[in-house]
C-alpha cells in the first residue's frame, strides 16, 4: 500500500530563517469521486500534520478534503542551525501514519 | 602510380560506392509505414483495426505530407466527397438550434474508451468558436460566431452549410490537415469562396471590408486572449 512511500523533505537555512518544503505521497481522496462503475470512492486523506525541529513543534496542521493529492507543504520558521533534525509526521483518516526525517542544510 | 595516389583512388572509390548505396524510396517508406501501423495497434472497445484502413480521400491527403493540394487534386477530392452528401428528402435544413448546441458541446463518441451506447457528439467546440457565451472554444477551425449574420440564411447558404457539416471534404480538400506555413486569415479561404455563389462573395466583401474591418480585427484579437491552464 501507499504508506511505504517516503516524503521528499528539503530543509534550508537562510540567515535566521529555516524554510521547510515537503512533498507527501498520499491519494487524498475526498469521498466525492465515483469510480468507473459509478460507485463512490471512499474518503481517505491526511488529517493531521506535525513538524518538529529538534523535538520542538514548529507546525501543527489539521487538513481536510480540500488539500490536493500528493500535497506539497512549504513554510518558514525563525531559528534553526545547520545539522538540526526535522521530523515530519502525518496521520490520515484511516489511522495510518507516516514519519520522515531530514536535516537542516 | 605511387602509394599516396593509390590511397586517394581507393578512398574516392569507397566514397562513391557508399553514396551509390540506395536508401529506401519514398514509396517503400510509405508502404513500410502502413505495415508498421497495422502491427502497432490492437482492437479495443468499439475501435477495430479496420479504422486504420484509409479511404481514397484520407490516402490522398496523407500523401501530401502537410502541403496544400494542387487545384486539380483538390477538385477531384471535393467532387468525390460532394457526391456523398445526402440532403433531407423534405428539404428542411434548419432544425432546433438548442439541440445543435448540445451536439456541438458533446465531445464523447467513437473513442475506444467511449460506451458504444453512449452519446456521440460532433465536438464542434474542440476546434471552433460558436456561441458568444461559450468561452471554452478551440481555434483549429475558423470562428463560427455570428455565422448566420455574416453568411445569411438563404437556401444556397443552408445547402452549403449542411453539406459542409455532412462532409467537410466536399468543399475544401484536406481542410482538417490545415498545414499551411502562413497563418490562416479569419475570413474564408480563397478555395472555400471558390464554391460560393457570386452574390454571397459580394455580400462578404461588403461586410468584411470598410467600417466592419476594424470591428473584425478587434474581435480577432479578443479571441486570441486565452486562458492557459
Amino acid at each position: 500500500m501507499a504508506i511505504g512511500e517516503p516524503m521528499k523533505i528539503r530543509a534550508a537555512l537562510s540567515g535566521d530563517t529555516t524554510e521547510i518544503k515537503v512533498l507527501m505521497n498520499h491519494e487524498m481522496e475526498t469521498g466525492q469521486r465515483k469510480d468507473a462503475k459509478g460507485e463512490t470512492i471512499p474518503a481517505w486523506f491526511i488529517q493531521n500534520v506535525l513538524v518538529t525541529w529538534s523535538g520542538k513543534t514548529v507546525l501543527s496542521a489539521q487538513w481536510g478534503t480540500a488539500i490536493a493529492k500528493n500535497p506539497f507543504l512549504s513554510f518558514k520558521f525563525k531559528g534553526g542551525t545547520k545539522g538540526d533534525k526535522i521530523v515530519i509526521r502525518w496521520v490520515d483518516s484511516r489511522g495510518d501514519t507516516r514519519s520522515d526525517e531530514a536535516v537542516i542544510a | 602510380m605511387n602509394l599516396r595516389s593509390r590511397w586517394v583512388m581507393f578512398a574516392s572509390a569507397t566514397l562513391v560506392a557508399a553514396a551509390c548505396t540506395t536508401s529506401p524510396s519514398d514509396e517503400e517508406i510509405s508502404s513500410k509505414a502502413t505495415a508498421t501501423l497495422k502491427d502497432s495497434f490492437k482492437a479495443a472497445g468499439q475501435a477495430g483495426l479496420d479504422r486504420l484502413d484509409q479511404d481514397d480521400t484520407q490516402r490522398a491527403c496523407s500523401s501530401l505530407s502537410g502541403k496544400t493540394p494542387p487545384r486539380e487534386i483538390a477538385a477531384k477530392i471535393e467532387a468525390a466527397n460532394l457526391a456523398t452528401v445526402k440532403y433531407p428528402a423534405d428539404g428542411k435544413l434548419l432544425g432546433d438550434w438548442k439541440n445543435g448546441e448540445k451536439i456541438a458541446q458533446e465531445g464523447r463518441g467513437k473513442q475506444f474508451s467511449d460506451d458504444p451506447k453512449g452519446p456521440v457528439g460532433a465536438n464542434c467546440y474542440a476546434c471552433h468558436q460558436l456561441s458568444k457565451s461559450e468561452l471554452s472554444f478551440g481555434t483549429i477551425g475558423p470562428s463560427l460566431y455570428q455565422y448566420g449574420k455574416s453568411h445569411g440564411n438563404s437556401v444556397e447558404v443552408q445547402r452549403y452549410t449542411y453539406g459542409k457539416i455532412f462532409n467537410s471534404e466536399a468543399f475544401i480538400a484536406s481542410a482538417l490537415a490545415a498545414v499551411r506555413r502562413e497563418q490562416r486569415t479569419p475570413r474564408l479561404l480563397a478555395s472555400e469562396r471558390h464554391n460560393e455563389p457570386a452574390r454571397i462573395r459580394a455580400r462578404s466583401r461588403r461586410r468584411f471590408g470598410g467600417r466592419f474591418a476594424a470591428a473584425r480585427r478587434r474581435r480577432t484579437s479578443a479571441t486570441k486572449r486565452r486562458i492557459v491552464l
Partner: protein
Amino acid sequence: MNRFAWLAAFAGLACAPLASAQSTTDEIAKYRAALQDGNPAELWEARGEALWKEKRGPKQVSLEACDLGKGPGVVKGAYAELPRYFADADRVMDLETRLVWCMVRLQGYSDADAKKNPFGNGADKRSDLEALTAYVTSESRGVKMSVALVHPKEVEAYRIGEKLFYFRGGTHDFACATCHGENDKRIRLQDLPNLMTTEGAQKAYTTWPAYRVSQGELRTFEWRLYDCFRQQRFPELVYGSDAAIALTTYLAHNANGGVYDGPAIKR
C-alpha cells in the same frame, strides 16, 4: 457620494471584466510557476531510483547494469540521446522499450510481466515503468537533446515516423498534423504545440514525462501517444510498438538542440 464618485465607481465596475480577464491569465501564469516547486513527479523519481537499484525479478538482479545507450549503468544524459539503435536487440528503441528489455534480459521477467502495467492508476495500481522513466529522464535534466540518425534503422524509424505524423485515419480523418501543424492553435482551452517547427517540437518533447495533475499520475511519452490516438478515434496503440518508437524518433530528433527539462508538471 457626489456625482463624480458615482461615475468613477461605475467606470471601475465596467472596466473590471476586462481587467480581470487579463489578470486571470497573469494569475494562472503565476500559479503555474508556483507549481514547479513541489512537483509530485519527484515522488516518482525517488521511487524509480529505488527500483533501479533494487534486486528484483526471478534473477534477483538490479537494473544497474542496464545499457541505455551510453554504456552499462550510465543513466546521466541517456534520455537526451534516445531513441537509438541497439545492436543487442537489432532494433531502434525508446526509453520505455529499453527498460522492458533490461527487465527481461537482466532481471528475468517475461515480456508480458514487464509490460503488464504501463500506466498507473492510484495507490493500488502503481506503474514501475512510469517510476523508472521518471528517474532516468530526471538524470537528463539540463542536457541538450541530441538524437542521432546514423544507423540505417534510425533513419528509417525517423522517416516512418514522419509518414505516420501525416497519416489521416479513423472516423474523424485525424492525423497528428491535424492538431499539431499550425502555430497558436488550441483544442478548447488547451494550447497545442506546432510539432512541425523546431521550436514547437523542442517545447513539447522536452517536457515529457510530466506529472499530469488531472490524472494525478506521472505520464510518459508512450502514454501521450496512446492518449492522442485514443482521441483521434484510432484503435489502441500497443505499448512499445514500432509505430510508437518511430513517432518518438521523429519528434525527439526534431527537438534536437532543445534543453531537456523533465519531468515537468502539466494540467
